[in-house]
């Protein structure tokens, strides 16, 4: 065991060094640097209260949580049947579906977001179709509001949800489903009483990972959202780049990081294969 651990550490060393150099050290430096602006602890706490409970930041935190939750729920509702089909598909169909899900990964988020803007804009494809068919009288406002943000983010995050669910569904022993059927269960009962419980750990993992990624989103809400759809990552960027209030940015970063790490701890607990059964 010790030898194997040593070997694993050696193999992981390059990525650990990279992570330390590009992420851990800068963020530590950023956080501690910002703290040094305060002479005493009480001053720090006072400022933190002022920043985090100010209207803008508070509203943005609520927005972030709300958008994250809606996007995660949508991704789950769309992703669950998709993953199911994927887990049952064989051969060419499997490759085709997988490609459709994974291919967007290879394109940058910005490009994909702009593509959505082309589709969703006032004169975009969707509005033209709806107008052309006479379904709506006026173009729908699909962009620069909450709806636009949710559509864009759901699309970008869907593959994470689908692939996580797929892994859980692939691990389901199909003999158990057949057994349930043989014992008199209807297809709906097999699904609800056997398949869903057996994939529950995948649902929890998929929800957590999607939510974690969603609350840190920056590009999509910035491009597709309206003025009231400010998410916390956008606010951090604004404090750093425009108002240059680094201590405020640092405090928001700490909140975001803490939430993320907490959720990640829950995630890694659930993602452990040994805990899969229950």
């Amino acid at each position, binding site marked *: 065991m010790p030898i194997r651990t040593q070997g694993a550490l050696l193999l992981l060393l390059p990525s650990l060094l990279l992570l330390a150099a590009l992420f851990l050290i800068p963020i530590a430096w950023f956080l501690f640097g910002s703290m040094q602006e305060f002479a005493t602890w009480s001053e720090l706490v006072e400022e933190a209260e002022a920043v985090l409970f100010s209207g803008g930041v508070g509203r943005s935190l609520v927005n972030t949580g709300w958008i994250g939750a809606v996007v995660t729920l949508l991704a789950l509702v769309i992703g669950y049947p998709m993953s199911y089909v994927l887990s049952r598909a064989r051969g060419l169909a499997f490759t085709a579906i997988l490609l459709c899900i994974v291919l967007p990964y290879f394109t940058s988020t910005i490009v994909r977001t702009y593509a959505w803007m082309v589709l969703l804009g006032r004169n975009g494809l969707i509005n033209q179709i709806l107008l052309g068919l006479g379904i709506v009288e006026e173009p729908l406002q699909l962009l620069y509001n909450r709806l636009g943000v949710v559509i864009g983010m759901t699309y970008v995050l869907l593959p994470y949800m689908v692939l996580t669910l797929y892994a859980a569904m692939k691990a389901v022993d199909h003999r158990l489903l*057949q*057994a349930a059927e*043989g014992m*008199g269960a*209807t297809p709906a009962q097999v699904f609800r009483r056997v398949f869903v419980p057996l994939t*529950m750990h995948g649902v929890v993992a998929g929800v957590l990972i999607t939510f974690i990624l969603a609350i840190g989103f920056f590009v999509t809400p910035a491009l597709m959202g309206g003025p009231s759809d400010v998410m916390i990552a956008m606010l951090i960027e604004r404090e750093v780049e425009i108002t240059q209030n680094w201590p405020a940015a640092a405090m928001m970063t700490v909140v975001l990081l803490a939430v993320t790490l907490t959720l990640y701890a829950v995630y890694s607990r659930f993602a452990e294969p040994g805990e899969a*059964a*229950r």
Partner: protein
Amino acid sequence: MEGAVALEGVTKRYGSETVVSDVSLTIPPGEFFTLLGPSGSGKTTTLSMLAGFVTADAGRVMLNGQDMTHVPPRGRGLGMVFQNYAIFPHLDVAENVAFPLSVKGAPKAEIQARVTEALAMVKLTGFERRYARQLSGGQQQRVALARAIVAHPRVVLMDEPLGALDKNLRYHMQVEIKEISRRLGTTVIYVTHDQEEALTMSDRIAIMNHGRIAQMGPPREVYERPDSTFVAAFLGEANLLVARRDGDRFAGPGGMPIQAGVGRVEAAEGRLFVRPEKVSIAGAGAGAGPNSLPGRVRHASFLGNVVRYEVEVAEGALVLCDAANAAGITLHPPGEAVQLSWRAEDSRLLAA
């Protein structure tokens, strides 16, 4: 006919391969019926057609006197024990056993009573709140059994239920399954590749080979009077000596005249079948005649209750002879000249 099962000319093809070919059988209520065969013989597919997981391409599946050929599994009302048990890992023992009742929406009190009864029957009272991963292989097997009988089905299907257990436990469970099925009067259709298990447990055995029933009958009958060399060799040890046509008679190794109990072979060559335990061994020179061969002991293995001799006879053929280790028998050491013989009614002439 509650509990009666019948297959009428059932056939199943996968692509160009016919895995079950024109299988017909009739099982009366309460019978313990075994489908025995090597892997790939079609026994599991036959069971799957009874269960409804696989639909027959031709023929009819009859349960309780009704045509069930196109009825889905849930409409067939069968109890089932699956290979590898198929115990739901997310449910505890009581919930697992309750499953066949709860999917039918049975009242809570009834479920409770039936589960308690079924668990008592398999001696698992007190294990209600355990999960499969907290149970031994034998206990999981019992859960599977309790779940199969909890709804009081008239027919229970079992697909190699004891395959994963070690030998001692297997024997134990064989007795228990037999016992429970007899007590409940359930018809059991049992699939196994273990011939000993089939012989111990069954009222009747159907031996399958290449998708067909090679022979069907009570254990003793198929064991002692096989119709083919396949059945003879598959069910335990068998001597199958080359028998050549000599006029209208057949002769064994070294021209030994054959008097076989039964059997008709049209070809020039057949096989003389005799079980090792039906062969008597005596010192050289003891009465030559039909069904009697001189030979020399090549190997003698002492197996405890039995001494197994490998005797080399004419033309280099080997004959197995199991002599019971009864009181006062003489052992024949390797190299000794001996005389083998058997009764005509214990041997059969089979097509090669």
